[in-house]
């Protein structure tokens, strides 16, 4: 999967989780950029991404990812 495809699918996941079609993420997107992105939403995001890409984050990553760019790097490595 190309990086572009990953971002496309990721946009869909974010839009679904936050119920907002206007959301588009970039490598530098962080939790503060999206109003409802709290620790509960983080769990939903992680699980939705795992399901969407058929991969698993490990425990360190669930809480440790600093921005969307890091998320994508992990997805690229495993999906």
């Amino acid at each position, binding site marked *: 999967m190309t990086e572009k495809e990953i971002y496309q699918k990721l946009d869909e996941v974010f839009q*679904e*989780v936050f*119920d907002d079609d206007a959301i588009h993420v970039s490598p530098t997107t962080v939790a503060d950029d999206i109003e409802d992105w709290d*620790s*509960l939403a983080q*769990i*939903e995001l992680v*699980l*939705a991404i795992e399901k969407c890409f058929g991969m698993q*984050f*490990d*425990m360190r990553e*669930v*809480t440790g990812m600093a921005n969307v760019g890091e998320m994508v790097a992990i997805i690229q490595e495993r999906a």
Partner: protein
Amino acid sequence: MGRSFQSLKRDAKADASDKLPCGLAIAGDCATQHFSVAIKGAGYQRGLDVRVFDADYDQVQSLTCDPSSPLYEASPEFILIELCTEKLYARWLGCEWSDRKGFADQVVQEMEGVWNSIRRNSSAIILQCDYPEYDDRVFGEFALKMTDSFIVQLRRINALMGDLASADPRLALIGLSGIQARMGRTAFHDPKLYMTAKMPMTLDALCEAADIVAAVMAAYKGLSKKCVVLDLDNTLWGGVVGDDGLVGIEVGELGTGPAYDALQHWLKELKARGIILAVCSKNDEPVAKEPFEHHPDMVLSLDDIAAFVANWEDKASNIASIRERLNIGIDSMVFVDDNPFERELVKGMLPDVVAPDLPDDPAQYVSFLQGLDLFEATGFSQEDLVRSDRYVAEGKRMQSAACFDSVDEYLKSLDMRARVSPFDAYHAPRIAQLTQRSNQFNLRTRRYTEADIESVMQSESSRGVWFSLTDRFGDHGLVGIAILEERPDGLFVDTLIMSCRVLRRGMEEFIMNAMVEQARSVGASKLIGEYIPTKKNGMVADLYSKMGFVQRSDGLFELDVEDYTGRVTYIKEERDDREGNLPEA
């Protein structure tokens, strides 16, 4: 059942003001925020406006024993207690070996203490989750025959909870252990989620659990289903009794019979429990009743059916009349039918009737229906107590329900397209089979072999056409045939057959229009029909009169082609562009 967390979350935000208000407090020794969102969403689907008070994390003891705690402030009708296996195991680890034999008794005793506090301080119904099983594998399988292993003590806790709960009609158990058994431990629990967020269940498991909590609350609020309305052909037995006959339908051990056998047994159990069974079938009544009376493998008998309706009217009207006859709430009815057309009609016209989308494979019917959790029981006295609530809510729902005003509106929404094609070699076997098998919508019941059909194709004076129908449910394939013969007095309808599956949606009218067009194309001034009665084709006795034909003195029916204006139908004709290059059989 089977819904995603995101869809429950959307429902949790939806306007539920037309639903039955329902206060719920949740207390647990784990994170419960996602659970409360999911329960609110699942409640919406089950007719409840769930207002959740989500208590602070891991405060079950202190919140329940303090009469002035925020748990009781909102006077919830239900208090849900979720205690997780992970905390239980942590406690187990701190328990001396010598005390482990008595672990379950001690845990349950404390749990009873919590219940008693709630009973003292509130009139809420207690919803207590049981413990999903976890085996630490320290002793391997040997643990199963020890009295002081974690798995044995955990199972004992669940069993003791059941014993205690059985004495209290205002205490319900929520079987998380059963959900885990159905989903499997790895789908139910993700260690990472518990360790990072104190969530003992995955979101998928949470959705299942939420739906069960909602089903139990709905039952206490009097919203359980009380009546199952059943289709017959391909729902209660395999095949079409009107066409295949008593010996041709599949029930019992024959063919797909075991699937229908399983469904009938399950329904019989429900009936014994007090769920009302009714039949709503498109059939002639004597034909529909025959299997109940004479088939040796039928599990259900006519005595099990509280209302038996078999006719050719639309099913929504029939269900409404069954409801009147049984004097029950329309929202307490479940409609089980293999045919998506019928289900959608009923959903559109009677939105409060649950019409589940049965799986295609009859082998899956029972497990699918079981998974819907429609028939939660709480005990009869509870239901009596809340009956008034239910009628209030029903009144509200009637006002708000969006539904089709008429069958016509529904038919328009189906996007039906039909095709008229001349007989061809490729379809000859299917056409011959239809003449052999069809008994109901069959005007003259002439049986033809494949060779006969081929000679119609060669004939100068006869023409055969077949009709196919597509709608938004899919392609129904070949649904009717007509064989038309040129005679001196007009074009004679030698054969007219239509599948009963597409009855009453305008296909009769469409076929009639097409036959008139055929008559015009050969320059005939009349279309002439005949009805030859048999035991099974009573449903078309009036067809020609209804379509504007006039009966002649010789008993035949005659239609003046020139005056015919075309009957109203919501089916669009698709022109056959494949003509001429059909594969040769």
